[in-house]
Structure formats: C-alpha cells, structure tokens
C-alpha cells in the first residue's frame, strides 16, 4: 500500500508508545525525599554490611555539596530530588528456582514485552537477570554459569556473598564523587547486576539484563559492576523498555567495567525508554555514567543503540591504563519529536600502544536535538597512541538539530589522532531510486537509515541486532517530510 507523506506523518504522530502499559504489582515504596535516614534505610532494607552503608553515606555527603551539571546541550525541567521515592521493590521477593513460581502477573508483563523467559531459556541461550523495579526477581542459567565459576547475580546479592570483590572494585572506576548523578547513584542505588568472570574463562553465553521502570514516581538507580579477570571474555547485554508515563522519570545508572590483563568485555545496550509523547510531554530522563578500565592488553567495547528517553546524557568511556589496551565505542542515537540526546564517549589513553575507535551515528528527526560530545585524551606517557573517530549525523526535516563537540587533547608526539564528522540528509534521489524499484518511501527510509547505521549494528550480538533494527524503524518511520 502506498502511503502519501501526509498520511505517513499522521500515522506516526499518533503512533503511541508500543510498550506503554503498566503492571500493578503490590510494591513496597519508601516515602518521597532524600536524607541520610533514607540512605541508611535503603542500606538496612538490603541487609548490607556496615562498610557499604558508610560508603553510601560518604557518597550522599559529597552529593549534597555538588551542583547539577549544566554543560550538556540539553534543556529540561530539573527533577526535584526531594519529590522522588528512592526505593521500591516488588513485594513478593523470594528467589525462584523455576518460572512456575514467578508471579503470573509479572510473567504476563514480560510476555507483552516479548521477553518470554521460557523461550529465552530454551532458544536464545541467554541468562537473564531481570530487574523489575530495582530488585532481581528471577535469575536463570545461574547454575550453568556457576559451574564455570562465573558469578552473575544482583549487586545486593553480591554484597552479601562476595563482599571482598565488591569492596575491592566498586567505585574504583567511577568514584562516588565523580559527578552529580554518579554520587546520587552511589548513595541510593537499589539494585543492579554484578558479574565476575574468573581467570581464563570464556563466558559461554551472552549475559543480559532487562531493565524496566515500573512503579510511578520511582527513579531507578541501577548499579552494574562487571569484572573480567585475567584472560577472560564476556559479552554483556542490557536492554530496556518502560511504560508510558506523564511525569518525568529519572534514571541515573552507573556502570563500571573492569577488564584485567588480557581480558575482553563487550557491553551492548539497547535503550528504548519512553521518549515522551509527540508534544514532548513526559519521558524518561536518562543520566548515566558508564566507564570501563582496561589493564594490559585488555579490550573494552561499548555498543549502544539509543532510541528512547526524553533527555539522554550518557558517555560510555574507556580508561586505557594498561599498555596495548583497546577501547571501542559504537553508537547509534536516534531522536524524534522533542527528544534530546547528548551522548558520546571519552577515551583516555594512559598506557603505551593503546588504541581507540569511535564510530558515532546520530539521526535526528522531528524537533529533536542530537549532540555528540566526545573526548580523546592522550597523556604524555602514552607512546604510540592511536585514535580514529567518525561522527556522522543524519538530519530529517529542518526543525531538528545535530551538534558535535569533539574534544581532542594530545600531549604526546607519537600520538596519531584522526577525527572526521559529516552532516547530511537523506537525498531525494536516493528515495526516488528506491521508489522506482517498487520500494515505498517508508521502507526506503528504513533501508537508508539501516545502511547508515550498519557499521554499528554489525557490532551488536545477533539477538540484539534484530531488535535494534526494528527499533530504528519504529522510531523513525515517516519522519521524512
């Protein structure tokens, strides 16, 4: 069926967020507001040891002294931090060994989302640590992993059972006082994932967590800690969808990756939180701090597909500390309607012969603003550092904006740094060419966008690549006028 542009536009504008539903699960929610008492209460609730409570309080005290950053190229109404409830957990929280024990209502939610645990268990071979409003309710494949010595659990469990690992590594890459939102997260994080791969182990499956924000008015403060011990390998997936809400939801996560000598971590994200409706009302605020540390010969690779959230503020970074370490960043950021994204990466070259690659694809449509902000820093001791950056922007319509803010700082004469950026639009001739061959405009756009983002999509694990491709289509359909 051939759409006219007008029809297409109309359909898209009225296209509601597909995953906008809300499950009513009895949950225990703390009163709104943030104080030392609340921080202590969260810690108590989670039965944490004293050092953890102290660690949280330290972060909270620093946070109180800090101011919200304003340098990002986004405008939004600042969240009132005293009007957020900092803890909510699904009420029935015994750990399940099999799916039958899981609350049927919860299972129905997942089914709507298209994540059937059963299916995933059997078909995808993915161990899923599902975070439903902050507390892990189901962890599968744990046993298989345990045989290899891999620890994959919620962070609260890790604090209980592997305190020595958590104590050693938490905050080692993203310190409590790193930035405003990292400090907030450190003080109040409710849950998240923890993963440890022992020496020389290659994780046999893709590890993945599905995050969901469910309870009205609760911000989610996830904390993820992935440690790959010497010579190990892990691929970690993170994907998100959230119910449609009127009020802005705050999400301030912290992800820390530690790749010890010769280890490799691949971290992939598909983010599709509620972006707000077509008037720009509602939507999730996504202020995330992600950073990885590479020791000798280690490699960290970030891949992200960002299609959701009203405001995104996210810079997955690599600190290339060890010699011969490698950092990679592949990103597609799509903004439509009134979405704003300020995203990019930081590559800090400290060791010798370190390499980094940055491929960033920004697609803006509607009245959205899409910014790339990146830093490539070569310190004076980083001999033979090599960086290649490419930022391409695609603009659809003349009411959106694309911006690039690349910072490049070189303090070593052997550094080789290249940066290129282009901005373009989908050419009428390209669309015409497709139309001529019987491909309708909508499909043609999907095709072109897909080609544009291919370099990044290719880096995603199979399961995600398909999902991501779909997401791109949904987010952009008909936005060419």
């Amino acid at each position, binding site marked *: 069926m051939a759409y006219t542009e007008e029809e297409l536009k109309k359909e898209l504008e009225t296209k509601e967020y597909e995953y906008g539903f809300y499950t009513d699960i009895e949950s225990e929610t703390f009163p709104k507001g943030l104080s030392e008492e609340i921080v202590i209460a969260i810690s108590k609730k989670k039965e944490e040891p004293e050092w953890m409570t102290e660690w949280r309080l330290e972060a909270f005290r620093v946070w109180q002294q800090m101011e919200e950053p304003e340098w990002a190229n986004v405008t939004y109404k600042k969240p009132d931090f005293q009007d957020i409830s900092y803890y909510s957990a699904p009420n029935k929280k015994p750990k399940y060994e099999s799916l039958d024990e899981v609350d049927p209502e919860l299972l129905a939610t997942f089914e709507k989302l298209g994540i059937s645990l059963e299916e995933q268990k059997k078909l995808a071979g993915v161990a899923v640590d599902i975070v439903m409003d902050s507390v892990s309710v189901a962890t599968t494949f744990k046993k298989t992993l345990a045989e290899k010595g891999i620890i994959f659990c919620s962070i609260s469990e890790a604090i209980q059972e592997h305190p020595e690992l958590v104590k050693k590594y938490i905050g080692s890459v993203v310190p409590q006082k790193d930035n405003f939102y990292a400090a907030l997260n450190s003080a109040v994080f409710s849950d998240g994932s923890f993963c440890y791969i022992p020496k020389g182990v290659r994780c046999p499956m893709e590890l993945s967590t599905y995050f969901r924000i469910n309870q009205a008015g609760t911000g989610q403060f996830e904390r993820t800690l992935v440690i790959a011990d010497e010579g190990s390998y892990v691929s970690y997936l993170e994907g998100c969808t959230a119910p449609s809400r009127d009020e802005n939801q705050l999400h301030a996560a912290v992800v820390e990756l530690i790749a010890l000598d010769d280890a490799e971590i691949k971290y992939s994200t598909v983010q599709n939180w509620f972006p707000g409706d077509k008037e720009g009302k509602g939507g999730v605020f996504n202020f995330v701090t992600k950073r990885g540390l590479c020791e000798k010969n280690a490699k960290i690779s970030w891949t992200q597909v960002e299609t959701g959230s009203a405001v995104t503020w996210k810079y997955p970074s690599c600190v290339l500390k060890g010699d011969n370490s490698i950092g990679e960043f592949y990103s597609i950021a799509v903004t439509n309607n009134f979405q704003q994204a300020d995203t990019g990466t930081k590559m800090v070259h400290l060791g010798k012969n370190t390499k980094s690659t940055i491929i960033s694809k920004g697609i803006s449509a509607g009245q959205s603003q899409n910014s790339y902000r990146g830093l490539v820093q070569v310190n004076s001791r980083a001999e033979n550092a090599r960086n290649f950056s490419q930022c391409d922007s695609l603009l659809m319509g003349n009411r959106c904006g694309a911006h690039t803010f690349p910072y490049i700082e070189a303090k070593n*004469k052997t550094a080789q740094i290249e940066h290129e950026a282009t901005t373009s639009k989908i050419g009428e001739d390209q669309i015409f060419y497709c139309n001529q061959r019987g491909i309708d405009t909508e499909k043609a756009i999907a095709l072109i966008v897909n080609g544009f983002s291919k370099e990044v999509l290719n880096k995603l694990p199979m399961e995600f690549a398909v999902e991501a491709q779909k997401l791109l289509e949904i987010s952009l359909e008909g936005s060419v006028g």
Partner: protein
Amino acid sequence: MDLKDKLLSSFLAFENNVDLNSPVHDVRSEAIKNFETKGFPSKKEEAWKYTSLNNLQKIDFSVFPKQETVLDYKEIKKYFLHEIDTYKIVFVDGVYSSYLSETTHDGVDVCLMSAALTKPQYRQVIDVYFNKVASKDESLTTLNTAFSREGAFIYIPKNKVPKKPIQILHLATGNEAALMLQPRNLVIAEENAEVQVIERHQSLTGNEVLTNSVTEIFAAQDAIVDYYKVQNDLDTASLIDNTYIAQKDRSVVRVHTFSFGGKLTRNNLNYYQNGERIDSTLKGVTILGDKQHVDHHTLVHHAQPNCESHQDYKGVFGDRSTGVFNGKIIVDKIAQKTNAFQQNNNVIISDKATVNTKPQLEIFADDVKCSHGCTIGQLDEDAMFYLQSRGIPKKEARALLMYAFANNVLESVRIPELKARINALIAKKLGVRVGFEL
C-alpha cells in the same frame, strides 16, 4: 591592585580625557559595566578551557604610556612588508606615529580611529558601524570597547579599490616595564569595494606587552576583503585578537592568520553571514616552539541560505608549546544549502608539546553539506625515508615535509611579496633553507 581594578579605576581618568559628548560615550560606559560584572575570563568558562589569563593578570601593566618615543624607520624597516608600496598606519606604544605612517583620503579613507570618532564628517559612518558587530557581551571585547580611542579606520566607498595594500603596525618600545595596549580597528568595504590589509603587532624589547585588540570588518554586497594577520612576536608579548566580521550578499572575506611566536596568542575570529551566496575563508598556519601558546577560536555563523565557509588551520608544535583550536560552525534553520568545511591538522614534534582541538558543529538545517576533519599526528615515515634515500639530510627532509604540510594554506594569499615573506618565515622557523620557493 589587580589588573581588573586597575583598568576600572583608570577608566575614569580615561573618560575625562576623551570627549564626553562624543556619541560613543554611552557605548563606552555600557561596555565598562559589562566588563566590571564579568571580569577576565577564567578557565572555568568553556571558551577559555585551554587558555589561562591568570599569569597575565599578575603583571603590573601600565594602561597609558607616559612618554612618546620616536623611532627611526631603519630600525623597524624589517617589520614592514617593505618590498612593495603600501599605505601604512603605524602606532608606537599605542600612539599614532605620523612620521612612520602613510595615510590617505584620496577616494578612500585610510586613517585613524581617533579621527573617525571625533570628526563630524565621520559621524554617520560611526553611527552605522561602530561596535555593531563586536560582541557586547564578551568581557575582553567590551573592555576594548570601553577604552576604544585609537586604531586604524579604513573606509572604502562603493566600487572603489585602494591603489595599494594597507599595513597596520603596532610597535611596543618597552619604555614602560609592562604595557597594555587596546587598539580598535574598523574596516568597512562598501558595495563592490575591495581592500587588502596586513596587520602586525611587534614588541621591540623584552618588556612585557599585552595587547587586547578588536577589529570590526564590514563587507557589503559583492565586496572583497583580504585580511592578513602576522603574529611573530617576542616571548614576552601576549596578544588577544578579537575580530568580528559581518558579511552581506555575495561578499568574500578571507582572513589568514600566521602565528609564529608570542608568549600567549588568542585569536577570536567571528564571522556573521547576513546575506546569501557569501564566501568566508579562514586559514591559519601556526608554527610554535619554546613555551609559546596559541589559541585559535573561530566561529562561523551561517544565518542565510546558499553560503559557504572554508576553514583550514595547520599547526606544527615543538618544545613545550601548546596549541588550541576551537572551531564552531553554526547553521541556522533557514540556512539551507550551506557548505561549511573545516579542517585542522596538527603535527607534534616534541615530547612536551600539547595540542587541544575541538571542532564543533551546530546544525539546525537539513539540506547542508558540513564536514570537519581534524588530525594530530607525525610526519609520514615513509615519506621521510623516501627523501633520505635520495640524499636529502634528515633535518632538511623533515623541514621539507613540514613546509609542504603548511604550504597549501598559503595558496590563497594574494600578495606575492607577503607570500614570499611568510615562506621565508616558515623556513626560518623550521631552521632550514629550502633554497626554493614553493
């Protein structure tokens, strides 16, 4: 007393000296108010992230030179482009030197800012142009505006072309232990006019000099302006050079900046395109050594459709020098069919040198071609080997390659003698005689 307080208090004395009834009086008072609130920019500000003025503020600069100095032309001849005949506007310690200068009113006006600001026949031009494109918000620009009294005034009426290029030379004699200068230039090219200007700041002794200069350039329809900045000053001289350019339909403005020296050099180069089919060209060669610091901060604002901008900055950094490039291109919603290109290439040749670069695009229109590219690297080893294998010594081979690297910026220099002079400067800077002209 810190420099800010000193400037604020000397403003009162300055005001008493100049004509209080002059039309610019209000502009000056407005400007000093802005500077008073803002003060000197600190590294906390995004635009000054890589350049610190802290050390400069500690120096006890005298704001008004106490005595006049007469210089012999022979002593300073080498600072002129003396191979060709030019109009000359020469200032010694901020004071106009009629003896060294050659101005004109024959068809075109090549004269002094002080004359333009006070004489009634220029009143209309001043009303229309003075402080119209310069920022009323940026603190150092407003500081200059507050103290604006002297500088070059160039007015080219419709369809006129001056007989020869114009040289503006600012000399500092070192009579004061430390001197702050604030020249203010105004260049106006009316419809279909054409002008070539060469500007240079030169300190003659090892005494500290700080120059905070503002130049406004207006190019009306079809006008062509070529502006060359030669920055090869001593290691005690600092320069903050603010240039604001307003262009109308089909005009061409080319600014070339050659930075080979000075303690701290900051170039704020701002283009505002207020018409269609405009061409803006910004080019620069930077070759630094010692502890020199050069910061190129450019802005090209595309506000109308069908315009072009071309930026090409090359830098070679040795010793402990630092180089900064921050280039911003803004393309407004209505500025469709904009072609904006930006290129910044750097070579670091010492362990201690630093390069910080930030090419920045802000694009709001969809039918545009914008690109920026930026590299930091070394000389190609294969090329070095090729030259060496043909009997060219390492040093010469290196110089040759760097020469070639920097040279394509010079292609668009339209005064052959200046090109030769810059070529010689580059060769000298790289410590080699290449023995031929590229």
